[in-house]
């Protein structure tokens, strides 16, 4: 019988790895068996080589974010954020793109009495605000995930993107993405690797850039030319 490309590739790999029953090892395995073998293999993880941060999460996050050319602004509450927006972005030609921010404790967002907001992400907006699920202090990154409130493409079509995060949602290192974007079913003994809830998770570190022309860094290649991170204290 002719083998499919999948069967042939898997058989070759199993043979290369010296499996006793190489020709059939991978091809005869059920989903449960695969999961069990996988769980056994990943029980142990190598120890971390990262040195602990020598400053607070917020301080380190801010330092790293600024180093990646992001602007960082701290706000005490929604009014302070609106004051900032009014001062800097009330004279734009296009409305401000925004998304619901209840998850970062801004339940009354958006306040349309003071600024012109829109939730249409396909238009070429100059400026927009998006909520982040969290931040990573190690790299100064913000983490966004596609869901019923957030459109992934929105953040990449804006000229200037302002990402709002809660100071409490900043974690120390990259490995903690799973804490920021938990799966619908949490990891457990019965379900050690649940399918992720979000189609897409974006770790964003500074504005869009390219060095494709003579290795000179130029901000604003295809995504936002400017990234502002608004931290709700």
């Amino acid at each position, binding site marked *: 019988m002719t083998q499919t*490309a999948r069967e*042939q*590739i*898997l058989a*070759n*790999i199993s043979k*290369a*790895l010296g499996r006793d029953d190489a020709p059939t090892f*991978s091809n005869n*395995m059920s*989903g449960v068996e*695969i999961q069990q*073998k*996988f769980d056994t*293999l*990943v029980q142990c*993880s*190598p120890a*971390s080589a*990262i040195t602990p941060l020598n400053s607070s999460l917020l301080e380190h996050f801010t330092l790293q974010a600024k180093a*990646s050319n992001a602007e960082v602004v701290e706000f005490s509450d929604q009014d302070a954020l609106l004051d900032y927006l009014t001062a800097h972005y009330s004279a734009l030609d296009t409305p401000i793109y925004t998304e619901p921010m209840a998850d970062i404790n801004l339940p009354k967002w958006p306040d349309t009495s003071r600024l012109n907001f829109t939730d249409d992400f396909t238009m070429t907006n100059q400026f927009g605000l998006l909520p982040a699920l969290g931040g990573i202090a190690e790299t*100064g*990154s913000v983490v966004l995930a*596609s*869901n*019923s409130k*957030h*459109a*992934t*493409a*929105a*953040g*990449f*079509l804006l000229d200037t993107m302002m990402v709002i995060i809660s100071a409490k949602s900043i974690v120390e*290192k*990259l*490995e903690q*993405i*799973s804490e920021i974007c938990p799966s619908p079913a949490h990891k457990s003994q019965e379900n050690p*690797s649940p*399918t*992720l809830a979000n*189609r*897409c*998770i*974006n*770790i*964003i*570190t500074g504005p*869009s850039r*390219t060095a*494709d*022309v*003579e*290795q000179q860094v*130029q901000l*604003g*290649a*295809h*995504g936002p030319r400017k990234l502002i991170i608004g931290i709700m204290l």
Partner: protein
Amino acid sequence: MKTIDFVDLSHEALKDQQLQSALNHISGGFVANRTKAVDSVENFEGLRTQAKAARDRAMQDLDIYLLQFERKVQEAGGHVHWAQTPEELAQIVVDIAKQHKAKTVLKGKSMVAEEAHLNDVLSANDITPFETDLGEYIIQLAKEPPSHIVVPALHKTKQQIKALFADAHNLGERDLDSVAGIVNEARGVMRERFLTADMSITGANMLVAETGSTVLVTNEGNGDLSSSLPNLHIVTSSIDKIIATQDDACKVLRVLAKSATGQPITAYTSFYNGPKRSTEKDGPEHFHIVLLDNKRSEILASEFKEMLNCIRCGACMNHCPVYTSVGGHAYNSVYPGPMGSVLTPLMHGHDKQAFDLPNASTFCGRCEEVCPVKIPLPSLLRKLRVKGLNKGYVPLISKWFVAAYMQVIQYPRFYRFSTALGVRLLCLFKGKKGRFKRLPLASGWTQNRDMPAPQGETFQQRWAKKQKERSQ
């Protein structure tokens, strides 16, 4: 396949003033930035060890991780396809595109797509590929292959890019004298394409078995626009991109950008997990991954399996004295530089010309020193030279030279006498500058640079002298 003649292409590259000018940017750019990034962390060596451990783990049980990855992608609603050859991969992509009646494609950077000459195959099937990465777009306009795996248009100067844009776009009053002008021009042209294309094809930096995620790192944001706006997203990748867990992926991410561009992390690191969920605001409804083998499963069984750990950062080529002298096109291969000199003969085992590439090394060892996953590139290159010799791919003159050398070194006294004589003779004719512009039997060297004259003593004479000084 075109004939690869590394030596001839290198000669051309060395004479190309514009190429040499473009290559001159490497040491001040990538090399300096990497050094700065590595110095900014306390324990980069520890991070390299961790990344290597993560890659080793993935390769040790590759079959199980691939099966788990396939399961998780399917659970999320995606489709996984398998291709043994680049031709099969291209056919699978074309078939999916045709099923969806796609006519225009947003294409992100994918070295696997380069292996399959995917743009040519798409065009032959009346499907128009639009490269979205700026570097890839530049070389698409120039109708050239990439010359670097991270910066595909590394060989192009600003003036050459300006000329390409002027030819392809209706520029009007737009000024492209500055880098900003060039980047803005590409941004403007690409915007409309992002919003209207029928489908997208992106590569993947890693495939996470634990979650079925495809990891893509970019700086421009083209990958995220491509993968979110059209209704069909195809990822072209290879079986060796598997990583066991999300934690392991983070360990690789921690060294990848530092080694590639000298950034702590790229501007965008994205994890794609299948098609759009029913409640989500955007994303493709159809999600496919095509996994290419192309001899990788054979490499896994060989003494070259460590090459599969490569994370495609390009650090080895940025630090290679050969690559930085001749650029990527001289290698006439999808993968240039030291990593390409190992991969190419392994992927084209019966191609005599591919076995030229392992000789494109001075064995200075920088590639191994900077490799973020500690691939012993010089050792692999050396093994390939032996393989080439055993296959009869070494020119007769080289064989004779090595045979004569082998004879000489079997008699230490004669060896010492002949090298001392040679050094003395060269010293006699070195002239005031201490360098030779021409030298019999060394024209390969002196064609492009002067040969430094010996200082008067052989290595062994100097060594003996030093030892004597130390003992006194």
